[in-house]
């Protein structure tokens, strides 16, 4: 492997290469640990609701489907946010070539976010939702009761404060330090994330407007500013592991985010087909969103191209694998599977079916879960005092990569089959069946999906184990 | 002052480019002024022609004539204004290809 390359470096260089450059980068560690912990929670609840699909009264009434689903989706967002924050705290000092403005603030913010998040989840699980709403001030300003934005008002306010503290810390660091494309794009994306989250406080009475603005959070996050964050993180890791000239990587990054914004902003229209907005959205939304796969295609080309042109054999092969995997899976999940249902003429039939869910799972995993895991894979060894984990540990980590990734592919294929069945039996047929009759036919597919979910969880367990595998360190 | 590796590389590249430029006549890449004027006149005349056909003439298959004219004008623009005839073949092909695909699809829709 790369033992020889590392062995040939002088001792001082090896020592330098195996540490973080700025002490304050260490604040990223708790964020990453929390991220993985919450990821585990997310999957546990995913297994619960996956089973409830086929065993309808599993855990009823203690943990109902609607509550468990809320926990599953909210945990996903929160663990990814912890991941982004850890990534920001790690890469901004390194890019700006100075210590973080306030490591102390970062740690305080961490605990505030973690406790608030934990309390919210406990609230979901322990109280009837309407009681939770009443207790947490929803009567003052109603913001609850909408998908993915189920958080109580005080939690939402807490998120804003946590985000502001995070952005303040990073922005002050950037302002005083070196400005690179990677750090600027990262911060642009993160500021965008915070600003668009403010729309979760906008809750019009008019149902059409309500749904119109809801997408300003959800779409403009995952098909907008989050892609900037993802691009910057991917670029950062590729600069480090491939040693390719920074200018080349940064140029690619600008192109990718330009394509993201060109296609994704008006592409919001693919959520405006049927909610009561004017019909021209069916044209605009289809045209622009049809091109949304392009930035993901570019990210795949980018990752493979940079690795191909690498100027060094970085010992952290796992991180490289995660980076390449992110490109491929995000293109497949977000790009290809997204395209499947994006044209209005197709969406007319697939809207609200498991086809959408198949896209959602592969896209979220492929793009955002994987880019956070890429970052963790690259940074965690350094945060623990080594350039890369031992070959044994990397072997387990790579196995975990494959198990999780292939499991998601399997889940996606199951859900695609389920969705296709729905479309055929419930919508396209001359003698359509009812929703429940169709669901009855799909049950075997849901069982298969659940088994793949178990497999995914095994991969996640392997992943956690990889952090504790020792074995011969490279000297 | 420390020259970062990127700056050094840029400086070297500049020198290489300047040396290469001395071996070429840069003006050869662009059409002569006379050709430029002729091109402009031709494109403008074709534009006015198309508009006149639509206003006064209104021949059968107006749409086809006009779209074909636009295609032709586009080809000239890509070749000489964009200068893609001197560009790498893949870029030249992509842009002319775009024009060809769009124009022929539009022509087809009027059949």
């Amino acid at each position, binding site marked *: 492997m790369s033992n020889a390359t590392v062995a040939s470096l002088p001792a001082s260089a090896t020592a330098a290469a195996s540490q973080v450059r700025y002490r304050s980068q260490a604040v990223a560690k708790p964020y990453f640990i929390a991220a993985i912990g919450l990821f585990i929670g997310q999957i546990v609840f995913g297994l619960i609701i996956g089973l409830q699909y086929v065993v309808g009264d599993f855990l009823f009434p203690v943990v109902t489907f609607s509550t468990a689903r809320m926990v599953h989706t909210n945990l996903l967002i929160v663990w990814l946010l912890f991941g982004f924050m850890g990534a920001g705290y790690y890469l901004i000092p390194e890019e700006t070539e100075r210590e973080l403005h306030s490591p102390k603030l970062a740690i305080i913010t961490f605990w505030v976010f973690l406790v608030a998040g934990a309390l919210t989840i406990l609230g979901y699980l322990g109280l009837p939702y309407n009681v939770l709403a009443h207790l947490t001030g929803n009567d003052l300003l109603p913001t609850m009761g909408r998908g993915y934005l189920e958080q109580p008002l005080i939690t939402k306010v807490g998120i804003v404060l946590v985000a502001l503290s995070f952005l303040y810390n990073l922005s002050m660091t950037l302002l005083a330090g070196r400005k690179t494309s990677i750090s600027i794009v990262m911060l642009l994306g993160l500021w965008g994330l915070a600003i668009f989250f403010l729309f979760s406080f906008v809750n019009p009475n008019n149902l059409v407007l309500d749904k119109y603005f809801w997408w300003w959070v959800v779409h403009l996050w995952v098909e907008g500013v989050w892609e900037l964050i993802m691009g910057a993180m991917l670029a950062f890791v590729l600069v480090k592991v491939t040693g390719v000239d920074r200018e080349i990587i940064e*140029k690619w990054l*600008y*192109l990718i985010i*330009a*394509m993201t914004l*060109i296609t994704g902003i008006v592409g919001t229209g693919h959520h405006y087909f049927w909610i009561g907005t*004017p*019909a*021209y959205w069916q*044209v605009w939304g*289809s*045209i*622009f969103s049809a*091109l949304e796969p*392009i930035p993901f295609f570019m990210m795949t080309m980018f990752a493979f191209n940079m690795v191909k042109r690498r100027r060094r054999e970085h010992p952290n092969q796992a991180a490289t694998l995660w980076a390449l995997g992110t490109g491929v899976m995000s293109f497949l999940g977000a790009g290809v599977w997204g395209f499947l249902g994006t044209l209005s003429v197709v969406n007319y039939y697939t809207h609200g079916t498991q086809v959408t869910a198949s896209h959602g799972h592969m896209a979220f995993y492929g793009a955002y879960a994987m880019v956070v895991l890429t970052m963790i894979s690259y940074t965690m060894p350094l945060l623990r005092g080594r350039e890369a984990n031992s070959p044994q540990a990397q072997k387990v980590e790579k196995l975990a990569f494959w198990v999780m990734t292939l499991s998601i592919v399997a889940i996606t294929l199951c859900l695609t089959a389920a969705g296709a069945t729905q479309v055929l039996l419930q919508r396209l047929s001359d003698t359509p069946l009812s929703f429940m009759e169709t669901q009855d036919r799909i049950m075997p597919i849901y069982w298969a999906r659940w088994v793949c979910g178990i497999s995914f969880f095994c991969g996640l367990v392997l992943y956690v184990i990889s952090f504790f595998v020792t074995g011969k360190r490279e000297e | 002052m420390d020259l970062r590796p990127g700056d050094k590389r840029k400086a070297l590249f*500049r020198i290489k*480019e*300047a040396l290469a*430029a001395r*071996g*070429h*006549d*840069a*003006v*050869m890449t*662009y*059409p002569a*002024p006379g050709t*430029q*004027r002729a091109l*402009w006149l031709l*494109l*403008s005349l074709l*534009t*006015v022609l*198309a*508009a006149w*056909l639509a206003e006064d003439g209104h021949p059968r298959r*107006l*749409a086809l004539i*006009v*779209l074909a004219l*636009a295609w032709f004008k586009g080809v000239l*623009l890509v070749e000489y*204004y*964009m*200068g*893609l005839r*001197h*560009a*790498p073949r893949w*870029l030249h092909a992509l*842009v002319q290809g775009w*024009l060809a*695909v*769009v124009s022929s*699809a*539009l022509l087809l*829709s*009027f059949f």
Partner: protein
Amino acid sequence: MKALVQSSAPPERRVPGDLAMWCFILAELAVFGVFFLVYAVFRWREPALFAAGQRSLDLTLPTLNTLFLLAGSAAMLAAVSRFAEGRQPAGRRALALTMLCGGGFLALKLYELVGKFARGITLSTNDFWMFYLSLTVFHFLHVVLGMVIVAAVWRLARDGRYTPDAMDGVETAAAYWHMVDLVWLVLFALVYVAR
């Protein structure tokens, strides 16, 4: 030696301007291309509606607009050739001429669009007007961006930086401008003239 090279070697193939800009241009062409094709499908399905809409369109102003953009492109080509010959002031004058032409286009187009809105035409009037407004406004925005890019280059050119072996900036701006013109050539023919 220069003569030897001049007579036998054709100019080697190189990308005019920044490759990143060309990627951007290709993306823009893709979007417009799809837009045009969708227009074609809708028109094919409702020929009478589209023909009626087109009949109410004035042809004089849009034709003038096309002439403006073509003149702008011609000026842009002149600018690039002059910079390549080391004639900086002449090149800047040609850039200014490009902007003048672009400004003319924008003014006329604005007048045309205001006229439509004054007649109560909106995106929801019917399919033809929806496409007409979408395409022309979308293109309008691109002309604005083209003007911004050309203006930036015109400004930067003041310090004489665009020497014959440092032409990247001007060529990049030219490439974008010509793309905007190319798209208009198709748009003009399709929406205004082809009836």
